[in-house]
């Protein structure tokens, strides 16, 4: 056989092998075409004598918050949910679960490629970036009025405001939690060792940081990410500006990004002072929750700006393993000079979902969330998983199965997507008490409820970004941290802001202010 023929045969073999491989590789994917016909594999058992509905979907859900959920477990829960819905909503799912890092890129690639997507789960800040893309999101007002009455009634007004654009269209469905997620955790045991009380204002906090720095040279006194630390600290500076506040009104009544306000300079100066004194880790921006958690659990930091639940609840076991005598607690909101605690208004909306405009299953999706809201068993299934496997029913309470601790749950919350903590119609969903971590939630709520609200004056107004899409001023996320961590003087802040205005910011401000004034007129 000539070499040519041999090569040809080899090529054919490769092609065959390849096809098989690729075939089984892609075989897991359900057909991404909308199907109105029942899938033959499902045989729904229902209590009602009614005919099981035809299965709808699958709807494609983009979910970038996997935490530690394990695929085989969520598929089980998904199957159970679909079965439970079979007689009234009959929705089937196809979850695309991606890691949180790099989620926007994945989403953008899917959108650009025209992939079918029905439901997208995002943080509200990220969702806002897509709000202005024309024909992307489905306005939900009509659907909510028809299928989502319970959602409208039960979710507080402030959450809906966050989800509504300036034209009055509700664009997102919100999660809503009473607890605030921006705070600060501290090593209480180290405080006691140094004989210091829990700091209640900035001066005391700085004193603690200095003490930590001297007493514990192997430790970084404080670390954190700006979306945790800014809201926590801004009250102490009487500042309406923070990383988490997009827009505010300046002294002349213009709508500007809050971080361009002169008062944000105070915040920057504060951080800068901390970095210069060696109290705050200069490389804070290159870490993430996971790397900071490792530092906390191994005693490398004393003060951690984060979601206090993360330090005090979710990482409790890991921390205790290394420091059996260690103790953590959360800091109270630092008071301003007048001794008043202030915290920015937090709608408690930590997550939203939006429905893609060309989805055919908008009604079913809203029904799904409405059912989550109204049906306690259904919600329990979606939040905690399959009874017997993921949790154990103890009558009045429920608990995790033997040997599973709270940070090692193979399934939690993934398919519930939105959670609402204020609900009181749930079966007592209290797990076996763990006093060492159970106190955190209520204590945090009480603390934050006691603070005065910081309002921007723009509540209810969402600027429309499309008219100014052509303007690309410098990225504040890039330049402002540089003022903090590099050697430049604090007055560099003014240069940065000036640059922002010069490179397109001025036009943006003018447009937004115009929109705001229009909105004021319309809503008199």
């Amino acid at each position, binding site marked *: 056989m000539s070499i040519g023929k041999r090569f040809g045969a080899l090529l054919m073999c490769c092609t065959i092998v390849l096809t098989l491989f690729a075939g089984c590789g892609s075989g897991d*994917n359900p057909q991404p075409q909308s199907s109105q016909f029942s899938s033959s594999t499902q045989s729904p058992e229902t209590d009602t004598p009614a005919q099981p509905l035809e299965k709808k979907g699958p709807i494609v859900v983009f979910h970038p918050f996997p935490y*530690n959920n394990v695929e085989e477990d969520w598929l089980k829960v998904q199957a159970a949910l679909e079965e439970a819905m079979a007689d009234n909503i009959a929705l089937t799912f196809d979850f695309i679960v991606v890691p*949180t*890092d790099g989620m926007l890129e994945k989403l953008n690639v*899917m959108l650009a490629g025209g*992939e079918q997507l029905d439901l997208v789960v995002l943080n509200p800040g990220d969702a806002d970036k897509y709000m202005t893309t024309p024909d992307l999101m489905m306005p939900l007002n009509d659907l909510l009025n028809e299928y989502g009455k319970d959602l409208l009634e039960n979710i507080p007004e402030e959450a809906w405001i966050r989800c509504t654009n300036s034209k009055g269209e509700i664009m997102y469905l919100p999660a809503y939690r009473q607890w605030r997620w921006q705070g600060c955790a501290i090593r209480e045991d180290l405080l006691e060792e140094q004989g210091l009380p829990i700091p209640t204002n900035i001066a005391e906090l700085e004193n603690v940081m200095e003490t930590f720095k001297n007493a514990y040279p192997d430790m970084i006194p404080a670390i954190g990410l700006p979306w945790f630390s800014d809201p926590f600290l801004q009250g102490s500076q009487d500042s309406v500006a923070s990383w988490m506040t997009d827009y505010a009104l300046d002294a002349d009544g213009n709508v500007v990004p809050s971080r361009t306000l002169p008062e944000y300079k105070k915040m920057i100066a504060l951080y800068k002072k901390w970095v210069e004194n060696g109290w705050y880790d200069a490389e804070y921006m290159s870490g993430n929750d996971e790397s900071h958690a490792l530092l906390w659990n*191994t005693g490398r930091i004393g003060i951690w700006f984060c979601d206090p639940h993360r330090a005090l609840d979710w990482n409790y076991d890991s921390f205790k393993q290394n420091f059996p005598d260690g103790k953590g607690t959360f800091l109270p909101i630092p008071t301003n000079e007048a001794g008043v605690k202030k915290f920015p208004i937090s709608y408690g909306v930590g997550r939203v979902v939006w429905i893609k405009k060309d989805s055919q299953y908008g009604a079913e999706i809203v029904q799904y969330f409405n059912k989550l809201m109204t049906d306690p068993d259904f919600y329990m299934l979606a939040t905690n998983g399959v009874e017997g496997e993921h949790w154990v029913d103890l009558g009045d309470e429920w608990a995790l199965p033997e040997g599973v601790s709270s940070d090692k749950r193979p399934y939690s919350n993934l398919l519930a997507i939105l959670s609402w903590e204020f609900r009181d119609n749930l079966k007592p969903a209290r797990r076996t008490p763990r006093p060492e971590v159970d106190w955190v939630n209520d204590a945090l709520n009480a603390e934050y409820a006691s603070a005065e609200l910081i309002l921007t004056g723009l509540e209810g107004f969402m600027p429309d970004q499309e008219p100014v899409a052509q303007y690309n001023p410098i990225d504040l996320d890039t330049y402002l941290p540089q003022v903090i961590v590099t050697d430049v003087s604090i007055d560099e802040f003014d240069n940065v802001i000036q640059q922002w205005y010069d490179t397109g910011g001025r036009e943006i401000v003018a447009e937004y202010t115009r929109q705001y004034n229009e909105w004021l007129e319309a809503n008199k």
Partner: protein
Amino acid sequence: MVNKAAAVHRRKSKWQEPIAASRPFRVFNTLLMILLTLLFLIPFLLVAIASFTPEIEIAAKGFQFFPSELTLYNYKYLFGASDKFVRALFVTIFLTLIGTTNTLFFTSLGAYALSRKYLPYRKGLTFFVYLTMLVSGGLIPSYMVVRNLGMVDTLFALFVPGTIATWNLIIMRNSFMMQPESLEESAKIDGAGDFTIFFRIILPISKPIIATMIVYLAVGYWNEWFAPMLYITRNKDMATMQYLLREIFQSTSQSLSSKQAMTMRADQLPPSQSVKMAAVMVTVVPILCVYPFLQKYFVHGIMIGAIKE
């Protein structure tokens, strides 16, 4: 005189200089070479040691050369905790084999055809190939093409777009062009067809350049991470090792989450730093083991390519 003869004899071997540089310089040079060798190796050594270090020690004292304790836990975690890593390893091996063969086959065919000086429209075709090196459509248009062909989330997307490696094609074309024409002529006289000439005559002679190409391509496919990042969204089974490595560096717990991982975490501290290093070692060690043996080929191949007769 005798010395001179001996000197001439030594000079005949290719790698020896007729007159050596001064002794101090040679000593300095040797020391310098040793220093450079250390510079090349030390980072790998550090990572290797770190991969055997327990997480708690790295967290406390950082990456060090002499940890107080060594452990295999990280590797056990990597392979036992989640089948993701093992699957990525197989995907990468498979991709390297298939991709290299695929690209080599079609590229060398095209290179041969374009090396025949008598082929009409040859200049035009060569320019057609060359132009693609200068202009490209960019990210999104390429993605749309791959998607319209239905290759998204399959292994095809990782190697089919790269079937023709233009730079390699040009080099191979030049190399084929340098073969004496007499070979082809005499084969034609014997009645051989173009395919036969290519496979039976030109290819065997061109072993060095083919071997070089294999090395280039194999390394490229082994290290591929951008294509999976772009094209693989849903089907995690198609992730390559480098891509998984990147994900592990961003978030270890999310990348390697699985039931076994949860049961394995005996010491409660989710391993991240040490596992990252272990993952790096797994991607590097195969290359480490293989490339010294291929050295002969790619060195020779580059030399052939460099020397223009």
